[in-house]
C-alpha cells in the first residue's frame, strides 16, 4: 500500500549547505496535483500514476535540460497522471540528508522517492550513472532491480545513453529507446491499469511493459560471453519477448506538446534562458558523432510553430534570452523566417536570441549583428580535425577554405575572439594531423593581422583558443569498432601541439583530462559485467563523476580489477563482424551502413549529407522527415 508522508527539511539543514535554493522548489510554472496527494492521504489509494522524474545531476543543470521540461509537461497532461521533479543532492546535502535521515524527495510535494509508482531517470551522459545510484539509495529504493519488491516503484530511464544501457542493466526495470513523448505515457497507462487491477505481480507487469514498442526490460534478457571474455550474445529468456527493440520517434514535431510554460527556477541557473527546439536529428553524419546517428532522420518544426513557441515562452517565463536548440542551427531550412519573426515580435523587449553552432556565412553575420548575445562569448568553430585528410576521414564536410572564409567575415565584422574545437585520438590520426591543428590556428592569427592592415583598423591582439577533447568510440557510430587512443600516445600529441603554438601569444590551448575520457569510453561500450563495478565504485564514494574534481580514476581501476575486468577489454578495437552488446537495439540506421561508413572513412571518402543525396542509412524505415522531403 502506498501512503503519503511529506518530508520535512529543517531550516538548519538548508542553511548548512551551498545554494539551498536547489532543494526547496516553489518555482513559477511548476505543477502540483494536490487532489492526487490528498486522495492518497485520505484513503490510502489513488489509481492515478505518480511519477518522480529524476535528473542525476545538480538542480541547475537538470533545470536547463529540455528533455526534462518536455516530459514534465507530457506526464502532467492527463488527469490520471502526475509528475514531480527530483535532482541529485550535491555532496554537502547528500551528507546532511544521510546524517539527518532525510530521504530524497520531490520538489513539488516533498514526497520521498519510494512513495511513487514510477521513478523515471533522464540520463544525458554516462558519467551520471553513479548519481542514479545515489538518488535511488537516498530515495530508499533497493539499487538492484532484482531486489525490488511489489511495493517498490518501477525504475525506468531514457536519454541518449539508453542505446547501450547494459552497464546499468542491473539497476533499471525498464528502459525507453528513443524519443519519450508517446512511449512514456503508454508505459504510465499500463501502470494505471495495473494499479486498478490491484493484483500485485511485478513480474507480470514487467512482461507487459516489454510488449510496449520501444520499451526494453533488461531482466528478461540473458548475456553470454566466450572463454576469452568476449561478448557473445544477449537473448530473451523466454518466448514472446522481442529480440530486437526499435527506438521510438515522433513523426510530426509540430503536433507534439511543447513546454511553452516551462518551470522557471527561482535561482539563477547555468543558462538562464528559454529554449525552442528547431529540429531533431542531423543531416551531416560525422562519423564519430553518436547524436548524428541516433536521432535520425532529421525532422523539422515549422517556422510558424517555432515563432509562436518563442512568443509564448517569453511571455510565460520573462527570460530575456531565447536559445535555439538543434545539432546544427544553420541546417534549419526556416531560419531566416524564424529569426525575422522573432526579432519582430521581440522589438522593444530587449530579448536576445542565442544561436549556437551557427555556420558563419553572410547571412549569419547579418543575423549576429542584429542580435546581441554572441558578442559576449566570441565565435566558435568546430573543425574537429587539423588536416583535410582527417576531416574527410570523419566526414566533417568542410574545407580549410570554408573555415578561413568564415573567419575572415568574423574578423571583418569586428570580432577578435575565436574558439576552435578539435578532437585528438581520432582513427588514423598521425602527428601530421596534430600539426595541422597548430597550422590552422596560426593561419587564423596571420589572417587577423592581414585584415587589420587591409582595413586599417586598430590592431588588438586576437584571442584564439584551441580546445581539444579526446575521441571516444561510441556505440551506433561508424567508429563504434575503433580502439581508443592510448594515454601515452595522447600525452605525446598534446605536448607536441603545445610546443607548436608556444611562441604564439594570441593562441591559447585548453585540453581535457584523459582519464575521464577513458572511463567514459568504458561506460559507453561496456556490457552487463560492468554493473557490479559501478555499484562498488558508488559504495566507495564515487558520485558526480562528470565533475573533474570529484572523479576518482584510481578507485574505478581498482574496482574493475576486483571484478576481473580490464579497461582494454572495453576500449580496445572490436572485430567488425563480432557481436556487439547493443545489437538488440534498432535505431533505424543499420549496422551494415555503419560498417560501410567505416570503410569509407579508411578510404578517406566523404559521404554526402541527407539533403545532397540520401546515403541509404536505414532511417527511412520511420517513414518521415528528410528522407521523404
Amino acid at each position, binding site marked *: 500500500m502506498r501512503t503519503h508522508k511529506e518530508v520535512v527539511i*529543517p*531550516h*538548519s539543514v*538548508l*542553511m*548548512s549547505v551551498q*545554494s*539551498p*535554493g536547489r*532543494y*526547496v*522548489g*516553489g*518555482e*513559477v510554472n511548476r505543477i502540483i496535483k494536490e487532489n492526487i496527494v490528498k486522495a492518497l492521504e485520505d484513503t490510502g489509494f489513488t489509481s492515478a500514476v505518480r511519477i518522480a522524474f529524476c535528473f542525476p545531476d545538480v538542480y541547475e543543470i537538470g533545470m536547463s535540460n529540455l528533455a526534462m521540461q518536455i516530459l514534465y509537461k507530457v506526464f502532467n497532461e492527463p488527469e490520471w497522471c502526475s509528475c514531480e521533479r527530483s535532482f541529485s543532492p550535491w555532496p554537502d546535502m547528500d551528507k546532511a540528508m544521510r546524517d539527518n535521515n532525510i530521504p530524497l524527495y520531490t520538489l513539488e510535494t516533498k514526497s520521498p522517492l519510494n512513495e511513487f509508482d514510477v521513478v523515471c531517470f533522464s540520463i544525458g551522459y554516462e558519467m551520471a550513472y553513479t548519481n542514479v545510484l545515489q538518488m535511488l539509495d537516498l530515495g530508499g529504493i533497493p539499487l538492484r532491480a532484482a531486489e525490488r519488491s511489489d511495493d517498490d516503484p518501477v525504475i525506468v530511464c531514457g536519454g541518449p545513453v539508453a542505446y547501450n544501457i547494459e552497464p546499468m542493466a542491473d539497476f533499471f526495470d525498464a528502459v525507453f529507446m528513443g524519443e519519450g513523448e508517446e512511449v512514456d505515457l503508454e508505459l504510465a497507462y499500463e501502470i494505471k491499469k495495473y494499479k486498478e487491477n490491484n493484483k500485485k505481480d511485478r513480474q507480470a507487469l514487467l512482461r507487459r511493459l516489454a510488449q510496449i514498442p520501444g520499451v526494453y526490460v533488461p531482466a528478461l534478457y540473458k548475456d553470454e560471453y566466450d572463454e576469452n571474455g568476449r561478448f557473445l550474445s544477449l537473448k530473451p529468456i523466454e518466448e514472446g519477448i522481442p529480440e530486437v527493440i526499435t527506438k521510438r520517434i515522433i513523426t510530426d514535431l509540430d503536433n507534439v506538446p511543447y513546454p511553452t510554460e516551462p518551470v*522557471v527556477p*527561482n*535561482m*539563477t541557473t547555468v543558462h*538562464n534562458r528559454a529554449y525552442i527546439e528547431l529540429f531533431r536529428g542531423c543531416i551531416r553524419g560525422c562519423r564519430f558523432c553518436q547524436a548524428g546517428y541516433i536521432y535520425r532522420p532529421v525532422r523539422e518544426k515549422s517556422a510558424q510553430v517555432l515563432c509562436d513557441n518563442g512568443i509564448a515562452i517569453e*511571455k*510565460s*517565463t*520573462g*527570460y*530575456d534570452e531565447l536559445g535555439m536548440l538543434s545539432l546544427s542551427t544553420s541546417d534549419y531550412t526556416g531560419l531566416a523566417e524564424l529569426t525575422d519573426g522573432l526579432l519582430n515580435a521581440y*522589438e*522593444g*523587449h*530587449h530579448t536576445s536570441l542565442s544561436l549556437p553552432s551557427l555556420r558563419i556565412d553572410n547571412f549569419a553575420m547579418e543575423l549576429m549583428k542584429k542580435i*546581441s548575445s554572441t*558578442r*559576449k562569448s566570441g565565435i566558435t568553430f568546430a573543425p574537429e580535425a587539423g588536416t583535410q585528410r582527417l576531416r574527410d576521414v570523419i566526414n566533417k564536410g568542410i574545407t580549410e577554405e570554408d573555415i578561413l572564409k568564415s573567419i575572415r567575415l568574423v574578423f571583418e565584422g569586428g570580432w577578435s575572439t575565436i574558439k576552435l574545437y578539435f578532437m585528438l585520438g581520432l582513427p588514423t590520426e598521425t602527428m601530421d594531423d596534430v600539426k595541422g591543428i597548430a597550422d590552422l590556428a596560426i593561419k587564423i592569427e596571420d589572417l587577423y593581422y592581414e585584415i587589420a592592415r587591409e582595413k586599417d583598423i586598430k590592431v588588438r591582439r586576437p584571442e584564439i583558443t584551441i580546445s581539444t577533447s579526446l575521441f571516444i568510440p561510441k556505440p551506433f557510430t561508424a567508429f563504434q569498432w575503433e580502439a581508443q587512443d592510448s594515454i601515452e600516445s595522447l600525452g605525446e600529441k598534446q605536448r607536441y601541439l603545445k610546443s607548436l603554438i608556444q611562441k604564439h601569444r594570441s593562441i591559447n590551448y585548453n585540453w581535457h583530462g584523459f582519464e575521464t575520457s577513458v572511463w567514459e569510453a568504458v561506460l559507453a561500450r561496456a556490457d552487463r559485467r560492468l554493473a557490479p563495478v559501478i555499484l562498488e565504485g558508488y559504495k566507495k564514494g564515487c558520485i558526480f563523476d562528470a565533475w573533474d574534481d570529484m572523479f576518482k580514476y584510481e578507485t574505478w581501476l581498482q574496482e574493475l580489477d576486483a571484478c576481473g575486468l580490464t579497461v582494454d577489454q572495453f576500449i580496445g578495437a572490436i572485430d567488425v563482424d563480432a557481436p556487439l552488446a547493443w545489437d538488440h537495439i534498432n535505431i533505424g540506421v543499420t549496422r551494415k551502413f555503419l560498417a560501410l561508413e567505416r570503410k569509407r572513412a579508411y578510404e578517406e571518402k566523404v559521404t554526402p549529407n541527407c539533403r545532397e543525396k540520401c546515403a541509404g542509412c536505414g532511417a527511412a524505415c520511420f517513414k518521415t522527415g528528410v528522407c521523404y522531403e
Partner: protein
Amino acid sequence: MSKKKQYDERVLAMTRQQHLTHYVLRTRFRRYGAVSYIGHLDLMNLFGRTVRKTGLPILYSQGFNPRPEMVFALPLGVGINSEGDYVDISMSVKVEPEEFIEKMTPLLPDGLEIVSVVYKDEPKNSLMSVVTHAEYALEAPGITDCIKKIMTMDVIEVEKKAKGKIVTNDIRPQILKFIEEQSTADRACLMVMAGSSSNLRPESILQACVRYAGLEQVHADNAGVTRLCLYGGEYPNTKLIEDFV
C-alpha cells in the same frame, strides 16, 4: 488601440529618443517559504523576469546588456524572510501603483508578495542610500532572555570573516532597541543599524547569543529570521522608506 499597444508604442518612442526619465514605483514586498532560500542576485533576476512578464513599459539600463532598472534597498540574505523590503522599479512612462500591483501579483512565485506601492517622481536619492535601520524578529527557544542579557553588556564581541581573515567586532553600538511589545519569550524583535554605512547582520546577533547568553548552537542554526521593516533617517527619529524622496 489596446492599452498594451499604446504602451508599446510609447515605450518605443521613448527608447528611440533615449529619454531616460525614471518614473519610479517604490515597491514594498514580503518574502517567506521556499523563495527565502535564494540569494540576492537570484531575487533581482526573479523580479526582473516578473516585471518583464507584466508587459508594462519598464525602463531598461543602457549598454550592451540592457536590464530592467531596479534598485533594491538592502540585500536580503539567504534563508531570511521579510515583511518589509523595498525595491524601486523604474518605468519609462507613469504607471499607476494599482495597475502595477494587479499585474505583478499573479505572476510572482508563492512566498513573494507585494504589500504596497507608492509612485515616486524621479527620486533624488538612491534607495540604497536611504536605508539606515532595520527591525528583525529572531525566533528560537528562549531567545528573548538571551537578547535582554546581551543588551546589558557594554561590549559584544563577535567574529566575522572579512576578506578571508577573521576579525573581531563590537556589535553593541549597532543594536539600538529591543521592541518589547512585539516580542514573546521565543520571539525577539529588535531594531539595529542597517544599510551601506553600518550594517548588522542577524547571524551576528545569534552568534552573540550563543557566545554570551547560552543559546544552544542547534537553536541558533534553526532560528527563524524575519526582517520586519526598513527605515531611514537618524535614530530615534527614523521614518518609513516610503516617506523619502
